[in-house]
């Protein structure tokens, strides 16, 4: 059984040697060098460990090396499976409880810890870090950019969709994955920038040095300026069942699907209607995964409407004003139950719906990873922050903020004298804008025979359609990329706007051959195998309402853009309304069994399995020092270092009516990530297996 994605519209499945490894004694196949967690998912394994507190099954959670929930035993050593590559012959086992002392190792003499100086140290090679590095490189500033992955790009490498924003400032209309490549290539032109891959900054110290594990070797870097561009981590949500294997973040999901091309799910449910949740639904469909539904607690989804409409058209039900009540399953997720909420977001009894699902994505927002920055500031370093680490926004804004931050760094280093131009900040604010109001559907005000219909009516910072039109017939007022585009003038039916639109919100109606039954061209990215000429498809309007059926008369494959154009023969009366085709029938809720919820059992601190009940009792007894709460309950003392539970605890405090000013926050201490003792002594722990593999013979 292989859960690998072999056929993807946008991504090419990784080629590589197949190797054998074992899991719990069972022989399985992996791609050489992929992460253990990826190999396990590809083989349908979702339970990696049993929690040391209560034996509960543990699946993947962050897929990013931040928590330790995906720990397994690899050749007898406890490792985080999401950041440990699999090797031929590796013996992988479920980690049950805490691990034993790692098996005996061959220890070489401890090496010296190298200390380096540099002008700028950038932590994080995502969109903001890369943009900053490029700006510093342009002025030949000695810079080190550190990233924990094997290639640059950060979360860009997961973004298969085309970007919003403006073409001139942030590659709008280009797919995230391609932007990552473009920025990486650009960086290569600047020799003053050193790129450290597979490298993590684990601490910033009071002697103004950063501790970096550079490809397994620890070193200390003393920078004149430190830039935190570490991005963000996903927020969690407290509800019963929230730690079941199969419940995890949308970012972890995108890592599995878009970076690793494995299919971790057959039936997916999503919590959160922001851009991350909406895009994850779309990515899931591109991976051949059925999306059962998406819920959003607010009246409307917070993400771009074009993203929402895109998934609604394809057949994903979006339940606004709904919350998750519980996730259930024996060992892994099997069912989710949702309910409608009232004005104060309390579930309304009688509105519960239960769906079968094997995976539940939590996409309820992001928290900045700014610990390095805060510590660096506290230690009096020349510290800067950009991208999501500074403020959560789109990657387009992150790139621009990286550029601005680089100029602040240049000024602080005395390389540049002038201040950052004021209009850059204005541009940044525009790119960071939340979506504005949505305009009404208007009747056509021209009688052209071929013309685009712009199903994009919400104010968002985006302009590729206007930029791409060779006839300059799509208008967005100069200086206001937030405004919805307007078609005025001539259309030659070249499809350029249609192919570039990140929202897939443009169709082209062509009445030149047949006024009564014109063709409507619809962009399509779900999969080449999903449609063929002659298929009768359900048409939908811009928001997914059905408009009857129509046949595909032709399909044009824009290979370079990984986009298909479906030409549908449509009744002339509705042709302007058609915005997409539905692929799936809506999943209906199954039988809802009434269970007695005990919200107090909900896990808040997943590393130490501390429950909502324990936190509530402590708060109700008058405890206001979160350090005391930690001492008493162990909440925040686990492997992830309170990265996940800290914000949940604060939300419990709010729910309990505790004011923020009453609270004493938890003390943040190094390390930011668990790191082996041997690393600090510059000794590599080698297993018997590695010894064997490394032995070249005589």
């Amino acid at each position, binding site marked *: 059984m292989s859960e690998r994605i072999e056929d993807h519209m946008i991504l090419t499945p990784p080629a590589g040697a197949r190797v054998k490894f074992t899991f719990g004694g069972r022989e399985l196949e992996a791609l050489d060098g992929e992460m253990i967690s990826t190999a396990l998912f590809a083989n349908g394994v979702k339970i990696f460990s049993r929690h*040391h507190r209560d034996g509960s099954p543990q699946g993947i959670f962050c897929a990013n090396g931040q928590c*330790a929930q995906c720990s397994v035993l690899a050749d007898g*050593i*406890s490792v985080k499976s999401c950041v440990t590559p699999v090797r031929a012959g590796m013996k992988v086992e479920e980690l049950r*409880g*805490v*691990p*034993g*002392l*790692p*098996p*005996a*190792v061959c*220890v070489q003499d*401890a090496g010296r*810890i190298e200390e380096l100086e540099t002008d700028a140290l950038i932590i994080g090679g995502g969109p903001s870090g890369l943009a900053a590095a490029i700006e510093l490189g342009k002025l030949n500033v000695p810079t080190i950019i550190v990233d924990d992955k094997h290639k640059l790009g950060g979360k860009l490498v997961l973004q298969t969709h085309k970007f919003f924003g403006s073409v001139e400032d942030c590659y709008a209309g280009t797919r995230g994955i391609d932007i990552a490549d473009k920025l990486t290539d650009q960086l290569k032109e600047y020799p003053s920038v050193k790129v450290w891959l597979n490298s993590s900054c684990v*601490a910033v*110290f*009071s*002697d103004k*040095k950063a*501790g970096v594990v550079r490809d397994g070797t*620890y070193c*200390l870097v003393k920078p004149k300026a430190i830039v935190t561009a570490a991005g963000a981590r996903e927020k969690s949500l407290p509800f019963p069942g929230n730690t079941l294997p199969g419940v995890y973040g949308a970012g972890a999901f995108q890592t599995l699907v878009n970076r690793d091309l494995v299919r971790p799910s057959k039936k997916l449910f999503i919590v959160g209607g922001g851009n991350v949740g909406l895009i994850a639904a779309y990515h899931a469909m591109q991976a051949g995964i059925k999306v059962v539904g998406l819920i959003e607690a607010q009246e409307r989804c917070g993400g771009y409407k074009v993203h929402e409409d895109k998934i609604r058209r394809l057949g994903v039900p979006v339940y606004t004003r709904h919350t998750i009540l519980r996730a259930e399953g024996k060992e892994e997720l099997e069912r989710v139950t949702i309910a409608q909420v009232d004005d104060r977001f309390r579930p309304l009894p009688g509105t519960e719906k239960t769906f079968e699902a094997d995976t539940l994505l939590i996409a309820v927002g992001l928290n900045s990873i700014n610990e390095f920055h805060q510590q660096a500031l*506290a*230690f009096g370093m020349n510290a800067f922050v950009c991208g999501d680490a500074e403020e959560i926004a789109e990657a387009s804004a992150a790139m621009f903020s990286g550029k601005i931050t680089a100029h602040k760094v240049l000024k602080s280093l005395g390389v540049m004298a002038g201040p950052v131009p004021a209009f850059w900040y204005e541009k940044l604010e525009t790119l960071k804008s939340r979506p504005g109001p949505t305009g009404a559907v208007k009747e056509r005000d021209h009688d052209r025979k071929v013309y685009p219909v712009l199903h994009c009516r919400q104010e968002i910072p985006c302009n590729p359609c206007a930029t791409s039109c060779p006839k300059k017939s799509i208008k967005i007022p100069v200086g206001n990329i937030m405004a919805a585009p307007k078609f005025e003038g001539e259309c030659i039916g070249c499809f350029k706007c249609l192919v570039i639109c990140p929202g897939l919100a443009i169709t082209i109606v062509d009445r030149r051959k047949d006024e009564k039954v014109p063709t409507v061209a619809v962009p399509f990215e779900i999969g080449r195998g999903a449609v063929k000429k002659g298929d009768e498809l359900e048409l939908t309007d811009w928001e997914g309402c059905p408009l009857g059926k129509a046949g595909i008369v032709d399909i044009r494959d824009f290979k370079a853009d990984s986009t298909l154009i479906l030409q549908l023969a449509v009744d002339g009366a509705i042709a302007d309304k058609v915005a997409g085709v539905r692929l799936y029938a809506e999943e209906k809720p199954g039988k809802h069994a009434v269970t007695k919820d005990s919200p107090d059992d909900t896990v808040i601190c997943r590393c130490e399995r501390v429950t909502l009940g324990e936190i509530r009792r402590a708060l109700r007894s008058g*405890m*206001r*020092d979160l*350090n*005391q709460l*930690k*001492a*008493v309950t162990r909440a925040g003392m686990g*492997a992830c*270092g309170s990265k996940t539970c800290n914000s949940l605890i604060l939300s419990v405090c709010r729910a309990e009516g505790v004011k923020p000013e009453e609270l*004493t926050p938890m003390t943040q*201490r*190094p*390390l930011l990530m*668990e*790191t*082996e*003792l*041997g*690393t*600090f*002594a*510059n*000794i590599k*722990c080698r297993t018997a297996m590695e010894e064997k593999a490394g032995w070249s013979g005589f």
Partner: protein
Amino acid sequence: MTEKKYDVIIIGAGSVGTPLALELAERGRKTLVLDELASAGQGQNKEAIGGVRATHSDGAKIKTCLRSLEIFATWHAKRGDDIGWLKGGYCFPVYTESDERLLKEMLKVQQGFGLNISWLGPEEIKKLAPGISPRDLRGGTFSPDDGSASPLLSGQAFYRAAVRAGAEFRFHERVTGLDISGGAVRGVMTDKWSYGATKVVNAAGAKAAEIAEMAGVKVPVRPDCHEAGITEPLKPFLKPMIVDIRPGDKSKNYYFYQNSEGQLVFCLTPNPPIWGDDCRSTSEFLPEVSRRMINLMPQLSGVKVRRTWRGLYPMTPDGFPIVDAGAGPEGFVLAVGMCGQGFMLGPGLAPTLARAMDGAPTEEDREILHGFRLDRQFAGMEKLK
């Protein structure tokens, strides 16, 4: 509004002040504890690594810690809270002839005080510390009755018991002065309020000198700092606290043990000492301590460090505490300068201090107080810090 009156006010809700509050409250004394931090044990108490031993080099400390050991060891049975107590003993492995001589000499003194401590050969040390480097291992001392407890859990347990016994705690209150008239203390002023009491105990840890100054008493206490760390949990494999007294490149001794959660807790004594109250982590600690630990037990190289921190040792010139109920104004009591051992000394000192304040110390109390008095020469030097 009249100020509130207490029998005793303790300044500092830490390792010394909190157990003392419990002792006093249980004796029916109306007790107030003042601390500038947000809750009990938030100063240096929580920075302690948790070792509790009676195997010191002089009588006063040995006697005090024997009592502490009794309190820690029986806490769970008597009071019901789990404080993470483990009776794992202390083991000082020895690799050099001079260390062997030093420890064997001290052994005689320690055994003279009735301590359960003996010299073990290399084979027995290897059993106690699995995987310990055998090269040049000469043996070592082992004191099986010593142990460890969680400073976080015991700090909270002492606090809860003290509150139950009737002690009052006020947090987020900084002491700004002492009310002294006619050569006797009358009360304490804080940044929020003032309180009356005829007995005031200075248990302010690293800030002891500052508080003593308010009573016109000079105490030779100044903090230096030590860094510590904790690893991921592992299955139990190591029972005793391992203390390696050999010097390192930038350090004197270091020590580590496996706590009740299975985590290794380790601490290093920097050399030269780092004076001052800066508790921010430095880049020097981890490379130094990890090199030394792995050198001693190579298998530790694969164990993941979870967190590090830096705590203060309120040092005196001779390495012994200052516990004195007769220095300075009448009613002013010093329980300071614990030299990084407040966690293990605090509980044992509480009954002595309580009886001394009542004017009824036992013979043993008198011995302890004599050893820790302020007007000593500070000429000797603690051999087993």
